[in-house]
């Protein structure tokens, strides 16, 4: 179509296009936002208001009592100490798991692009394969491995009086998430470093930098976009994981947030406290939300860069 015919198009149809586009966007935004809205307002209402009122109505007398209760007093199974302990469990799991898997992914990407060895393609292919293995199929083998860790922990306890982390549920979950996340983090970093100028690495070699110095001083400082992508991806995945958490740390005070939340909602003593449940769910979702808000801009940019450069 020539420029003239584009220009000659009636202004009315262009406005109509806009209305359709923005209308659709609005509808989808509402579809996504209404549940969130309901959760938020419900968590700020009192129980009588919930029982008598409209789900979508704004709270008449907003209160943060449900949030305080969810944090400090809500019952998870038989213990009624709130979810804060489990929240910290999740943090203790997610921070090291994200840090380790991201760092190892970066290191893998660095070696697979800048220190190529015979068979580097095969190694990368096998690592990619890890991205396609379904969670469920590794549950049993992983349980066996973690069981061995537990045995090792007992041996260490007898020998040195402490288990050195072996058999600890949080450590187990960190291990599982690092192993499972490595395929993805390696993929992200390999693609990013593939487009990273090799001359910079050569210049650093001539300048006398070693393997890790080049990694730390030249590659990592120039990897911010892909680090953000990887951290967001890993953080949301690990934080939201329920399957591994319930399989390997499904009871007692070692539960991560996701499992605890499930138990809060399922606790069947007395009336169901919707406001507390909603507040607990909001608290559980807060960290991922925060990560997106803080780093979302880089996320989109980083994904695009990866897409273009392959």
């Amino acid at each position, binding site marked *: 179509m020539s420029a003239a015919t584009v220009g000659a198009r009636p202004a009315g149809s262009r406005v109509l296009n806009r209305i359709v586009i923005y209308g659709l966007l609005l509808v989808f935004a509402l579809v996504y936002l209404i549940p969130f809205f309901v959760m938020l307002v419900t968590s700020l209402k009192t129980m009588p208001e919930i029982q008598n009122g409209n789900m979508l109505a704004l709270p008449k007398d907003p209160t943060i009592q449900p949030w305080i209760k969810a944090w400090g007093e809500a019952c998870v199974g038989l213990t009624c100490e709130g979810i804060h302990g489990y929240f910290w469990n999740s943090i203790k799991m997610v921070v090291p798991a994200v840090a380790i898997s991201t760092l190892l992914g970066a290191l893998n990407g660095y070696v697979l692009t800048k220190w190529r060895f015979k068979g580097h393609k095969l190694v990368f292919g096998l690592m990619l394969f890890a991205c396609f293995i379904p969670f469920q199929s590794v549950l049993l083998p992983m349980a066996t491995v973690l069981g061995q860790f537990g045995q090792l922990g007992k041996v260490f306890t007898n020998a040195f009086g402490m288990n050195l982390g072996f058999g600890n549920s949080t450590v187990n979950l960190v291990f599982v998430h690092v192993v499972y996340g490595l395929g993805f983090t390696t993929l992200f970093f390999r693609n990013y470093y593939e487009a990273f100028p090799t001359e910079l690495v050569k210049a650093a*070699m001539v300048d006398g930098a070693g393997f890790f110095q080049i990694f730390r001083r*030249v590659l990592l400082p120039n990897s911010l976009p892909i680090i953000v992508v990887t951290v967001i991806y890993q953080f949301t995945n690990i934080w939201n994981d329920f399957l591994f958490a319930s399989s390997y740390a499904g009871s007692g005070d070692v539960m991560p947030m996701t499992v605890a939340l499930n138990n809060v909602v399922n606790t069947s003593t007395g009336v169901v406290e919707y406001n507390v449940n909603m507040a607990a769910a909001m608290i559980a979702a807060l960290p991922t939300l925060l990560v997106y808000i803080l780093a979302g801009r880089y996320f989109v940019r980083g994904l695009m860069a990866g897409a273009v450069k392959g």
Partner: protein
Amino acid sequence: MAFLEIDRLVKRYGATDILKGISLSVEEGGFLVLVGPSGCGKSTLLSMIAGLDSISEGEVRIAGKRMNELHPSQRDIAMVFQSYALYPNMSVAENIAFGLEMRKVPKAERDKAVAEVAEILQMGHLLKRKPSQLSGGQRQRVAMGRALVRNPQVFLFDEPLSNLDAKLRVDMRTEIKRLHQRMKTTIVYVTHDQIEAMTLATQIAVLRDGVLQQFGTPAEVYNNPANVFVADFMGSPSMNLIPAAVRAENGKTVVALQREGEGDLVLDPGQAGEKLSAVLGKTVLFGIRPEAITDHDGADRNARTLVDAECQVEVVEPAGSDTFVVAHLGGKHVIARMRSDVPVRAGHRAPFTFNMDKAVFFDPQTEQRVA
């Protein structure tokens, strides 16, 4: 013994030889330029000197010491890359100091060295900037500063000027020459620009398909090319290469060039005649640079053999300081370089003067020099 010696160097990828036994040597303080068309192996050779590419066969020695097994950082070399390869996350000062930092030079000394280099390259005001905030020429300077600050035994440059625009390239070329005269450090410099090679080098090595074609001073390579490839590659406009018959006339060996619609143009080959008598009756390629074909008054007065001849002028190209005049001889366009104010016109006959001292002759089959 030369300072930098490259001894029968071979580079092999799988079954293909990229470099096929290159031997070169440079004296301390020399400026060796590796020149040749794209893909001939210049960068590969430089990388092997630097230690960034492994050596398949042969040896690289600096100051008599074998380098083959040494890591790039232990060879006491500094390299300037085509893309400059400045670390984007570091300031200019940090970029320059990085190599010293890696060698554990104390901070105070590093700062002093950076300040000195900034002084030499006149970029003190740029030290705090990031590479992304610099122009192409400034980046080039920083890249050179990073090499200078280490004060190495040998500088390696891989097409350092090819990303600059024409004007800046000429300025930087002069600057590199000035730096070399000041530092007196040995330099190996890769380019595919023959003018850069001529102006900078003390020694030129012409490469083609991984084979060394000629190694010599710029004047040798320019005036006495070893073969047709070198003759054609060096110089702009390039050397005229005209098929010519070698004949005997009145007891003298002469060369005859075909002309359209008239008799052959017969030229006395001067001191080359003796060698040419060995190929009497055969055809040779007669090579003569445009500046050796002039108008009569523009000819070199010290030349021993000047031959005047009338030729039909095809095209006249004024180029400011000179005028290039194109004639048709031996089935080829022949370019002559005349003074800017010569009264020649296209389509008319004009007198040409051939300086036969500068003539060279090649075998048309082997393309090697015969006289």
